[in-house]
């Protein structure tokens, strides 16, 4: 229990502390240390849950089981490596005069606030507070998107604020409807929005209200997942903010929204025998996957390119969770991990690339492998991994997904495979020139902090070659929670 409280307390203290001292020269270091401490507590928490099963806090405020604890661990890990990267990166941004002291304070405080709200969203037991925390994530990040105060970044921030606000309002209406249904079986109780209470009585909930509620929840949280046609804010927000933010937004935030959606699906499925939530998720997932794969071809900005790749992968995961069944769910859970690791690594690399080339425009980035070989190689390898090539982990999870699809609905494998090829072509037509072309005059190497990237890619490679037994059992526990039966 202590481990859980500490996991939440460290980022909370960090938010308050860095709001005061965030402009110090060593503030980046403080930021890193706090994330390291948070990660250590999360490891403790994960071990506790792994050994003793689900954890319910005394006031029933927090509930941690195999499903959310692995996301908590992933969040704190990526938060830590991103903080390590952010320290010198932001120092460079200060040095070239893109941000001043006040904004550095805001940046550091909100970095921690962002991690805090995500961890609250993951660990809360109350479906209403889940909404509050997800909205809190938007509020914490909206000023970070517009940190550079260029007209473009302000536009991106405003769009993010309004679109996500409107979207997430639908999710609150859905939550009210769930509460309405819950009140009918637990009248007058203050506990009728608690996950631990509701889940055990899910089959008694009123199906007509639930199906209506899920439509609103899907639109609401789907906006935050970045599902087409509600994805408009995503490429802007991810490309205009500072790179460490892009890494966490793409790597983690989208997972949180998808997590919320899956939780609600778990709640609604037992009462609705037709599997309406699953079918809707499959439809939206497939649409997002295909549209994003096509749009990859039209991009000019390197960060926008990888934002669309995020939409594509989130679409694939939404599809897999919608498909249901142990194998697809296991694959989707694994995909969440490998996608987060690879995507945040890629954004970190892209941040360095943008410093080397002095621009984010892909037409002007050329010949990285000649200018700075290490950076060029990691960029190449990261993109190979995100495109789903063996031996990386994304290949494994996608292979599992496709196998599951082949068993359940074979004809859907065709659009999936076509989409994958389109996405592959979309990524590589841009990558080729950026990595191998002739470097323009005046392109010089920068001091790159490449360790976080190498760590992430090594982990993804490891997961692709041999998933450790512990992780398999762990993901299997989570799969059992989500669909009722495991793959083992």
């Amino acid at each position, binding site marked *: 229990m202590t481990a859980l409280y500490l996991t939440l307390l460290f980022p909370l203290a960090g938010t308050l502390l860095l709001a005061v001292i965030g402009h110090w020269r060593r503030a980046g270091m403080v930021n890193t240390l706090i994330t390291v401490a948070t990660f250590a507590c999360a490891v403790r928490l994960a071990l506790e849950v792994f050994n003793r099963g689900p954890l319910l806090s005394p006031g029933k405020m927090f509930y941690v089981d195999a499903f959310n604890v692995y996301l908590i661990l992933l969040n704190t890990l990526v938060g830590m490596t991103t903080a390590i990267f952010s320290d010198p990166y932001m120092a460079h941004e200060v040095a070239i005069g893109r941000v001043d002291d006040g904004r550095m304070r805001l940046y550091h405080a909100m970095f921690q606030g962002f991690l805090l709200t995500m961890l609250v969203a993951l660990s809360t037991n109350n479906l209403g507070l889940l909404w509050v925390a997800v909205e809190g994530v938007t509020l914490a990040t909206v000023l970070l998107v517009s940190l550079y105060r260029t007209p473009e970044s302000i536009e991106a*921030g405003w769009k993010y604020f309004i679109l996500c606000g409107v979207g997430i309002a639908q999710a609150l209406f859905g939550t*009210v409807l769930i509460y309405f249904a819950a009140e009918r079986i637990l009248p007058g109780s203050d506990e009728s929005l608690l996950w631990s209470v509701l889940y055990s009585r899910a089959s008694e909930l009123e199906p007509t209200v639930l199906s209506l509620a899920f439509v609103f929840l899907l639109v609401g949280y789907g906006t935050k997942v970045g599902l087409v046609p509600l994805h408009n804010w995503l490429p802007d927000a991810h490309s205009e903010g500072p790179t460490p933010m892009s890494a966490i937004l793409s790597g983690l935030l989208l997972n949180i929204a998808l997590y919320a959606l899956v939780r609600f699906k778990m709640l609604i499925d037992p009462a609705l025998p037709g599997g309406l939530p699953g079918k809707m998720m499959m439809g939206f997932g497939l649409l997002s996957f295909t549209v994003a794969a096509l749009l990859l071809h039209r991009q000019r900005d390197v960060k926008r390119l990888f934002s669309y790749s995020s939409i594509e992968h989130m679409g694939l995961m939404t599809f897999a969770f919608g498909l249901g069944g142990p194998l697809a769910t296991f694959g989707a859970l694994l995909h969440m991990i490998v996608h987060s690791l690879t995507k945040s690594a890629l954004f970190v690399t892209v941040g360095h690339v943008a410093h080397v080339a002095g621009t984010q425009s892909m037409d002007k980035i050329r010949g990285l492998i000649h200018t700075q070989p290490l950076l060029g190689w990691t960029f190449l390898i990261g993109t190979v991994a995100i495109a789903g090539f063996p031996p990386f982990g994304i290949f494994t999870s996608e292979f599992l997904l496709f196998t599951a699809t082949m068993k359940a609905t074979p004809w859907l494998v065709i659009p999936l495979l076509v989409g994958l090829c389109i996405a592959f072509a979309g990524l590589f037509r841009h990558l080729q020139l950026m990595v191998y072309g002739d470097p323009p005059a005046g392109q010089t190497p920068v001091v790159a902090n490449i360790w976080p990237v190498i760590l992430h890619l090594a982990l993804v490679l490891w997961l692709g070659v041999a998933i450790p037994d512990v992780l398999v059992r762990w993901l299997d526990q989570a799969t059992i929670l989500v669909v009722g039966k495991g793959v083992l």
Partner: protein
Amino acid sequence: MALAQLPMTEQWILTLAALILFTSFLLLAQARLITLIHTFAWQGVLLCLATVLVASTSGRHHLFISAAMTLVLKVFFIPWQLRRLVVRLDIRREVETVGGGASLVMIGAGALTLFSYYVALPIRALSLLATRNTIAVSLAVILIGMLMIITRRKAVAQVIGFMSMENGLFFAAVVATYGMPMVVELGVAFDVLVAAILFGIFFFHIRAGIGSLDVDRLNRLREGDK
């Protein structure tokens, strides 16, 4: 069931619901910013009254706290802050044309209201609560808020649309389930407060960035080929 056959308090709640929906339509059509902010405050007053009524008839006393929060946040703080910003940014006299033609937007809002009643049909059939008709109204308020965000060009008007959506959500929670659990309501109120402050900060950024609060001019980010 005819309106006159219902108990007195229910008649009042239904009347208030109708008035809240009416203010939503007013918000949609109002072109002057200061009047718009005042109308929004009035919607807050009606919402607060409805909450107090539901609280006293249902005996759920935590709803009184929600009503007080509504009064402070939506009737006083947010309108006061918006008004102050409008004065400071010197856009008091600005009048905007409602995008797509006012009458067309009104017809759209009417259609959304009908749609809300259609969506709420299965819930109304189930509800045992005295206030079942009002779920459709609250959904209509939410959707009209959305329509307002889409059709308005001024950032201030979009914020009012956003906040009026929140009003609709709050009303839904009050009438459908006698309010959400206290901890959730506090959280939502906190989010609304932070959002209101952030919007204020954004006004200055937008103004500094593009020299106006016309969000139509925020159009630099395009798909693909620029």
